[in-house]
Every structure is written in structure tokens, then in C-alpha cells.
């Protein structure tokens, strides 16, 4: 009885946690998964998003609502970011992963320090009425602090799915990952599609930032502890698979929750990556990836 209780709760909180991981990784699933740009600065952008949300929350705005509005400036920021990136690399017909990695590492450092200079180093958080309360269903109790951001993910995925399947821009985005020339032939500028994709990923980062800061406080260096996990999620999912991202993230979240509950919390971070290593060894293209 006790065991079932614990397992059910572990499953619930693991799934919620995983859902949040998926949101954190979603932007990366687009930039890295679809565009193959290894944007290691993504977690830093998420943290920057969290700060922007906290700032808005200081004026009384609901974090999620604020994030929704902030997606617009972040989208524009992403456009600029990609323009810089493509000027630096792609248009000159060079740039290997080592170089883009180093570039984005540099960008991540600049963002971190930018936040320190602008906001100081103290932990930031948001205040919302539902923090500190939980939903109880039977013997399963789930804090709203996790539940609310966790519910954002399915909504975002649904929106993203509708966008990708029902709109012209979405079709173009799916096509650019596969074949840029197919787009040119359809009369669409592939580089503007990629720029748009980057803007979208950056806009998603601010939603992820809101989710992150609702779950707990954030400081300018929080991105460092997120980096490994979000890459793990994207790779485990198989590059570019949006629903796969959710499944992989939930898998990691649930695995962590079970290890936390039944083994020891201190093994949890390693276990997620052990799953990743194992998957890469056995099925290199990820769980949902097509063959390479």
C-alpha cells in the first residue's frame, strides 16, 4: 500500500517535472534538432527569460501572462541573434560545430554576466497565489508550483503542433529542417524561415523561463545546471522530434523521481544521464529519431 502510494506520487511528480524539462528543451529541439545549430546558450536565454518574467511580476503581472507578452520581444531578439550567427558563419560557407559551440559558449557567458550586471547575483523568484498549495487526488499530491508550469508544456506542444501542421509558416519550418532547396523551389526564402525558427525558439525560452522561475528561484548562473539536462532531453528524443521531446523529458523526470523516492536523491542526476548514455549506445538516433 505504502509502496503504491509512493510510486504513484513519484510517477505524478516525475511526469510534472519531465513536462517542465520538455518546456526547457523545446527551444533547443527547434534550434539544435531542426536547424542543427548547437545553441548551448539556450539555457542562458531561458534564465534571461526568467529574469524578464520576474521583473514583470514585480509590477504585479502573472508570470505566465507576462511570459506570453514577452514572447514578442524575445522573438525579435531571436531574429537578431540568428542574423548575427548566420553572418558570422553560414553565409560565409563555413563554421563547424566546434566553432559554433565556442561562439554560443561565449554568448552564454555574456548573457550570464549581463544578468549579473543588470540584476545582481541574488536569487530571484516570483510570487503567485498558487505557490505553496497543492492538488490532491486520492493519495497523490502535486504542488501547483509544478502542476501549473507542467500544464503549460502540453499547451505549448499543442500550439506548436497546430502551428507546424496547420500554417504555412509551420510547414516551411518542417521543410527547412529537411531540405532548404525544397523551400527555395516553393518560392520561400529558407534563411528567413531559419531566422523565424530561431525567433520562435527564443520566444519559447521565455515561456520556459516563466515555468522555471515558478518552480523555484533562479540566479544568473542557473543555466549551467540546466545545460546538460536539456541537451540530454533533445538527444534522447531524437533530434527535432517535438512530441519525442515531451516523452523523453517525462521519461527522465519519472526516472529521476523514482530514483529519488526509492534509491536516494543523490543518485538522481547521474541516473538521467546514464539513461542517455545507454540509449546512445543502443539506439544512437534517439528514441524517436529517424535513422540518421
Amino acid at each position: 500500500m505504502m509502496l503504491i502510494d509512493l510510486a504513484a506520487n513519484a510517477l505524478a511528480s516525475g511526469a510534472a517535472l519531465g513536462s517542465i524539462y520538455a518546456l526547457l528543451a523545446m527551444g533547443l529541439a527547434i534550434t539544435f534538432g531542426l536547424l542543427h545549430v548547437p545553441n548551448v546558450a539556450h539555457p542562458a536565454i531561458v534564465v534571461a527569460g526568467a529574469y524578464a518574467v520576474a521583473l514583470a511580476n514585480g509590477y504585479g503581472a502573472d508570470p505566465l501572462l507576462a511570459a506570453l507578452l514577452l514572447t514578442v520581444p524575445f522573438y525579435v531578439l531571436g531574429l537578431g541573434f540568428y542574423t548575427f550567427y548566420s553572418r558570422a558563419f553560414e553565409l560565409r560557407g563555413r563554421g563547424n560545430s566546434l566553432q559554433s559551440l565556442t561562439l554560443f559558449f561565449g554568448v552564454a557567458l555574456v548573457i550570464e554576466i549581463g544578468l549579473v550586471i543588470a540584476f545582481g547575483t541574488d536569487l530571484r523568484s516570483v510570487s503567485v497565489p498558487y505557490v505553496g498549495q497543492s492538488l490532491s487526488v486520492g493519495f497523490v499530491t502535486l504542488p501547483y508550483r509544478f502542476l501549473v508550469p507542467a500544464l503549460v508544456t502540453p499547451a505549448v506542444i499543442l500550439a506548436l503542433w497546430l502551428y507546424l501542421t496547420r500554417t504555412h509558416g509551420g510547414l516551411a519550418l518542417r521543410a527547412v529542417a529537411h531540405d532548404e532547396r525544397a523551400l527555395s523551389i516553393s518560392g520561400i526564402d529558407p534563411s528567413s524561415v531559419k531566422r523565424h525558427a530561431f525567433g520562435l525558439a527564443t520566444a519559447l525560452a521565455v515561456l520556459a523561463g516563466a515555468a522555471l522561475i515558478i518552480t523555484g528561484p533562479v540566479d544568473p548562473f542557473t543555466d549551467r545546471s540546466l545545460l546538460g539536462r536539456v541537451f540530454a532531453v533533445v538527444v534522447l528524443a531524437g533530434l527535432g522530434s517535438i512530441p519525442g521531446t515531451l516523452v523523453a523529458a517525462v521519461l527522465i523526470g519519472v526516472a529521476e523521481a523514482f530514483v529519488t523516492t526509492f534509491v536516494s536523491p543523490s543518485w538522481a542526476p547521474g541516473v538521467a544521464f546514464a539513461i542517455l548514455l545507454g540509449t546512445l549506445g543502443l539506439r544512437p538516433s534517439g528514441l524517436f529519431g529517424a535513422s540518421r
Partner: protein
Amino acid sequence: MKINRREFAVLGAGVSAGLAMPAIWTGARAQGQPIRVGCSVSLTGALASTKNSLIGYELWRDDVNAAGGLLGRKVELVVYDDQSSPAAVPGIYSKLVDVDKVDLLFSPYGANLTATVMPLAKQRDRIIIGILTLASNDRLKHDKFFQAAPWGPNGAEDWARGFFDLAIANKLQRIAIIAADTEFSKTAAAGGKRVSEAAGLKVVMNQVYPPTLNDFSAILRNLKAAEPEAVFLCSYPPDSTAMVRGLSEIGVGESVKLFGGGMVGPQYASLLQTLGPALNGIVNFHLYVPEPTLKFQGIEGFLTRYQAIAKERQVDPLGFYIPPFCYAAGQMLSEAVKATGTLEEAKLAQWLHGNPVETIVGKIAFNELGDWTERRVLMAQFRNIAGNDLEQFRQAGKQVVLDPPALKSGDLVPFAKARA
């Protein structure tokens, strides 16, 4: 790709110039008259939230200089950023000692960073003031180390002893110990376990978790099942927040009368403000709270000045936790220099071992390891916190001191009752 010898020589010359640069740069500065006091502060990286210690040092320097300096010389600080990285610390302290020729040293913040300085301090036989380090001198037994934190003579075991004393005094039997997987927390947890066992308490749960954990549901469920009467938690700011939220979300069960102890985080304004009423009932360690029993000389003036600067620099606006002790660390040095009239470190150390120092955090006497002879860590209970207004934390009665008995401003209210 070819590089001929000439180009290699040019590269080499550039590199040597680079290496020599700090020497040229600081060589010129070292000609000055002031007494130089050096240390590293974590301005960036994981410990960057401790960078408000700088204000403590600066206010001390300003006060000393305003009073005419030491031995007729101005005091000057030499501070470097250690980026919260222990690997950077040995180089920085060698720079301070060997190049900048500082006269006196403070340690970096905390035990992990300080661990890499202690051998150097001992080899060079230098005075070093420990900044909130724990058990840093237990192994080397350096006779010129002095602690600027009130952990007491047996810090590793005793710094949170007040919590267990409270448990014993209130006849609580079953205790749970939960600690973040970091140096400070684990040391505290291990000490707590020994104290509990020595006092005949029953440890019903003893768990370590990774510092990145932000969902405590599973731990709290296991905790409820263990039915402890006291829960000793050693955590860091992000996980302290998560745990306090978990208390409201999941709860800990009816059995718990005493909760907290070793949480780092609810000393800082940002968390106090964030958590607000969710803190009620928690009994946690602190180094200073504005209770009437803690009217040390100069502390209030210090805090007023600190708070003005902190607002401008976007650091912790309250400054109860670290900065007063940085100021006090400076006072230890300046008092010793004033009393002995010298900068000779042997004499300063001898004086500090022999004479108590009056500081803004109280009167301090040192034992042979440089620790305080008396433990003065506060166990304070959050009470009557309403809303998220920061100002309330500057008032008395919000963090009631339960231990040590000498500074006591109230008695324990059982956890559930205090939250109700």
C-alpha cells in the same frame, strides 16, 4: 602550417610579456604607504550571492581610515574575484602574499574555498581570518588562524547544537536529518547525527540529496512516513526555498514539533521576501537578528550604512548574515594592531589568542585553534510573518531567538501551532 623561428620568437616574447604583466603592474603600486589587507571574494559563479561581504570589508576600511588609519597608515583592501572556484584560490592568495605583499589576510568565503588556502597560510606562517568557514583549521592546526564566525570551539559538531538542545529541552525523541550534498551541509548533518546519538535521540531518517533538487515531494513523503518529532534540515538557498514550499504543498505530518536548523537561505532578504508567511514556525540558525537581546555596539549603525550601499549595488538589502562578520573580521585585525602597535604577525596572533575582541557581532574570545571559545549561533523561530513585505524582517519579534539561552528572546512554539 608553418611557423618559422622568428615568428615563434615573437610569439614567445608576447607570451612572456603577458606573464610578466602583473608584476610590472602591481610592482609600481607596492611602493605606497598603506597597510594592505587582501582576500578573494566570490563575485561570480555559484557563490556570487556572498559578494555583499565586500561591503563589510569596505565599511571597516572606511571606519579605520576615518579614525586616522592604523599605526598612522591608511588601510587598503586588495580584493580579487575567485569565481567561486577553489582551483583559482591558491593562485590568488599567492598573488596577494608574494606579489602584492599584503600585510594581512582574510580567507575566501566558506570551507571549500578556504581549504585550498590554509596550507599556504601555514607554510608562510601568516595570520588569516576565516570568513564563515567550518572546521577549516581542524587538520592543519595553524596557530595564526582566527575564525570570524560564531560556530564555537567544536564547530563541526556544535554549530547547530542549539537545535538539538532545543529538541532535548522540549523532550523530542525522534529526529530526521536531511542534508544537501555539499560540504557545509554534510558536515553539519554528520555533526547533528553524532550529537543526536550522544544525547540518546533516535535518528529515524538520514538522507542526502543533490543541491539541484527542487521537488521535495518524495523526500517529504518519506519524511511523513518516518514520523519524526524534529526535522534537522541542512540546505542551500534554492533547495531551502523548494523545501519550504514543499511544507505548504505536501506537509510534514502532525508529529513534527521542531523544523529547520541548518537552512542557508532564509537569512537573505530575497528568500525572506519570496517565502514570507510560509516560513512561520521554522526554527533556523542565524548569525544576527534584530532582537532586543542582540544590541551589540555599532551593529545598528553598520546595518544602516550597509543597507544604503546594498540597495545601490543590488545585493542583499538586509545584510544580517555575512557582512557584519566581515566587518568584525576587520575589527579583529585592527584591534590587535592597535593594541600591539605592530604588524608583526606573531605578536598579533599572540594578542588575539590572549585577549577578547569587542566587535559589532559581540565580544569574541579565541581558543588555540582560532575558533570562538563560546558558541553563539542563534536558533531563531519565524513568527507572525504576514505578507511579503521586507520591512517586517527589520523588526523585533519576527525571528525570535530560542537559543543560546544567554541571548534568548522567547520560547519554542510547536511547529504546527506556529504555522496555524
